[in-house]
């Protein structure tokens, strides 16, 4: 009996030593993503091995939006979250320890603004006023989609408070619109292209470029704790992601890139060929974030102005 116990102990100790030896110690990062085109550069960087070259292994998990991902960030379930500028500022206002680590998506040119307010072709809805008393689908409330939908409604003559905003995740907006559960949906790439390719739907407006051309819509978010405790990892992440952004910008429309998009959205490559993808920015744009912040103040979403600059990772500027 004694003999077999000591054999066990020896075996365990050996195993522990072997396990502790750094074989290929890739650092794991859990990243929450939204299955929209904004994160294609991230997946491109993974596919091209840019993260592996930096010694990082990226573990992705989908969510409905930043408003859902950020609580996960705070709770420690994720290291990095792809979220939107509005949710980021709301979190910052409430004292949540949040920082922007990398740029995401921007709408620089009108002709590149593919995201749109989409309606059923036969509904006769054309302006924000037409939407009063009706339902608009947004992926979550109190985020950038919701805010700019409201801003556009106001700009086109409607009262945003007379419109109901229903939460419908991006992949389900088209179905909800078809089944009349919503009367309009603020859709983004690639879903917007798929919907508007069908005659039953049409795009009536591009809220982002109409309300604020150049808006920084989404960014990668993390905590200040992450930036201070793991500064090398943060720098590595940003480096690899930027290589992914450059690769994405250069390869838009090519089969390898469409394969990548198909991988995380589960949409057929054939359908994706029709999608017009805009370029992704390499830097975060603080003045644009400030403009968004002011829009939020006007909409009573923020109680007081926020100093935007300190929230952004200096390397991301």
């Amino acid at each position, binding site marked *: 009996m004694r003999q077999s116990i000591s054999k066990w102990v020896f075996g365990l100790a050996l195993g522990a030593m072997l396990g502790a030896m750094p074989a290929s110690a890739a650092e794991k990062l859990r990243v929450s993503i939204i299955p929209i085109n904004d994160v294609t550069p991230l997946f491109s960087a993974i596919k091209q091995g840019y993260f592996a070259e930096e010694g990082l292994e990226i573990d992705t998990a989908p969510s409905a939006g930043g*408003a859902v991902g*950020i*609580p996960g960030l*705070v*709770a420690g379930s994720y290291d990095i979250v792809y979220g939107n500028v509005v*949710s980021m500022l*709301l*979190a910052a*206002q*409430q*004292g*949540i*320890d949040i920082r922007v680590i990398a740029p995401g998506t921007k709408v620089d040119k009108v002709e590149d603004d593919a995201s749109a307010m989409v309606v059923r072709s036969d509904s006769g809805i054309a302006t924000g006023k037409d939407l009063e008393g009706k*339902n608009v689908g947004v992926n*979550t*409330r*109190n*985020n950038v989609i919701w805010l700019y939908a409201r801003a556009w409604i106001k700009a086109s003559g409607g009262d945003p408070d007379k419109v*109901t905003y*229903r*939460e419908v995740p991006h992949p389900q907006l088209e179905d909800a619109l078809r*089944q*009349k*559960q919503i009367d309009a949906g603020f859709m983004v790439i690639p879903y917007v292209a798929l919907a508007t390719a069908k005659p039953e739907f049409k795009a009536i407006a591009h809220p982002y470029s109409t309300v604020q051309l150049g808006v920084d819509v989404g960014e990668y978010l993390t905590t200040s704790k992450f930036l201070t405790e793991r500064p090398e990892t943060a720098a590595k992440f940003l480096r690899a992601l930027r290589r992914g952004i450059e690769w994405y910008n250069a390869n838009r429309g090519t089969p390898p890139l469409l394969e990548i998009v198909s991988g995380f959205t589960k949409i057929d490559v054939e359908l994706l060929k029709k999608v017009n993808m805009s370029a992704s920015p390499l830097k975060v744009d603080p003045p644009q974030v400030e403009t968004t912040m002011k829009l939020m103040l006007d909409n009573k*979403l923020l109680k007081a102005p926020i100093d935007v600059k300190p929230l952004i990772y200096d390397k991301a500027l």
Partner: protein
Amino acid sequence: MKDRHLAILIGVISLAMVTGLWEFVSDHRIVSPALLPPPSSVARALVTLIADGDIWQQLLHTAALFAGSYAIACVVGIAVGIWMGCSEFVDGLLQPIVELLRPIPKSALVPALFLFLGIGPLTMVTVVVVAAVFPVLINVYQGVRGLDPVLSETARTFGCSRWRTIRSVVLPATLPAIFTGMKVALSLGIVLAVLAEMLAGQSGLGFIILDTQRAFQTDQMYAWVVVLAAFGAACSLLFDRIERFAIPWHGR
């Protein structure tokens, strides 16, 4: 000190201790106050939403949704439960459907219901009714089936017709079971009303709790949760009062 007073005192003290611990943990940032705001700020948010009158619109919406649906569920559950209990034919007909649907957690049916019925007040009511009807139905059914044979034989020895037996003996004898079912359906109904509001509502406690969470206004969110808890407790107390009044003989 009387036993009852002592029990209340102990309850108050333990509640105070938990609240104190909560305040301490939050103030000293053991847990981030963004996640768990201190009870003092939750209390402030609560006072604000009562003072501003915001509380009424949301509370009334949830209360109306719940009350209306609950009433429908009780009526249907009692009627069908008695019918199934008294008629072998109806029992044979409906039993398989009941047994099929009963084990399914009704919150799992909610997305399917929204898909089929669309998003609107009708669906919300249906959701709550579907959830609340089963505990009532099953308790009533078992109450009728479990009728003390001494009571049914008493009715027989006095020559009661089937209809008179149901009306004058089965129904009153089953009242305790009816109330038991309705009590379970009460909490279940509130849960599902709030869930339906979270998923597809435009107002109500479920909607506002989700909305404040989306905006990371956690102190307000917790304040609304307190309102919801108070609502649930009030319904429960009211129910107990009514039960004691309606079936004074039960449990004696």
